[in-house]
């Protein structure tokens, strides 16, 4: 069995720490009671970024070529798009 390209553990450790930090930002926005379109979309973009990090680095899809590179990104786009439209329509 051929070994795969393994993304460095150091990179994944940084990604973990960045995701923890971004989670704190989301929590702070929530605790501050910030609402409205801009706050909601900010929180959503943070969530989508974290999702992309999980797909790229933890699942290891970043190194892939072809079809399997994209399912997680496309999935993030689907609920991300639906949620954005729904929140934008109600302001």
């Amino acid at each position, binding site marked *: 069995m051929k070994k795969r390209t393994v993304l460095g553990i150091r990179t994944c450790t940084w990604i973990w720490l960045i995701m*923890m930090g971004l989670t704190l930002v989301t929590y702070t926005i929530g605790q501050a009671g910030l609402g409205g379109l801009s706050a909601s979309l900010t929180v959503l973009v943070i969530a989508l970024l974290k999702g992309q990090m999980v797909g790229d680095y*933890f699942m290891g899809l970043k190194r892939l*070529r072809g079809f399997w590179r994209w399912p997680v990104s496309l999935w993030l786009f689907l609920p991300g798009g639906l949620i954005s439209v729904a929140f934008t329509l109600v302001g």
Partner: protein
Amino acid sequence: MQTQVIAESDRYPPGDLAIWVFILAELAAFAAFFGSYAYTRMQHVALFNHYQLTLDKTAALINTFALITSSYFVVRGVAAIRENDSQGCVRWLMAALVMGGLFLIVKSQEYAHHIDEGITLSTNKFYMFYLSLTFFHFMHVIMGMVILAAVAVKARRGRYSAEQYVGVETGASYWHMVDLVWLILFPLVYVMR
């Protein structure tokens, strides 16, 4: 632990391809759920905003930390087995399971609190979505923990090695999916208003 050689295997995701078909089906179901939540919220904005304030954001923060950390531990477990370190793999997977257990405990406490307050699926549309969506995810956490536990047991028995670790990657991929879904669920249900 750095980059190693590859080639053709980089056309396919880690683990058994069958688990990826399953993962895509699960993700599609959650996407439909998220879309339904957002669409229903459009028609009941005031109700959703009001009852969202009753949720415990700190519990959700702890749970998000737990799942992100567990996913990272699983990454370390996969890296360990690639280095032929079975015991290291078991330790990282056990650590991930502890984080999964923490998630279940915190979420169960949230549910117990809601039950004490007499909140059910039929209380209102917000709680219907909140309870069903989070419980659907809760069941996936349990399923993921069962899979990780089975992988840890096999790793402990020496069934995996640096040459054969597809099973570890398969379990890891499922667990990352559970984490991925929560990363959208947390802000959508607890924060966005």
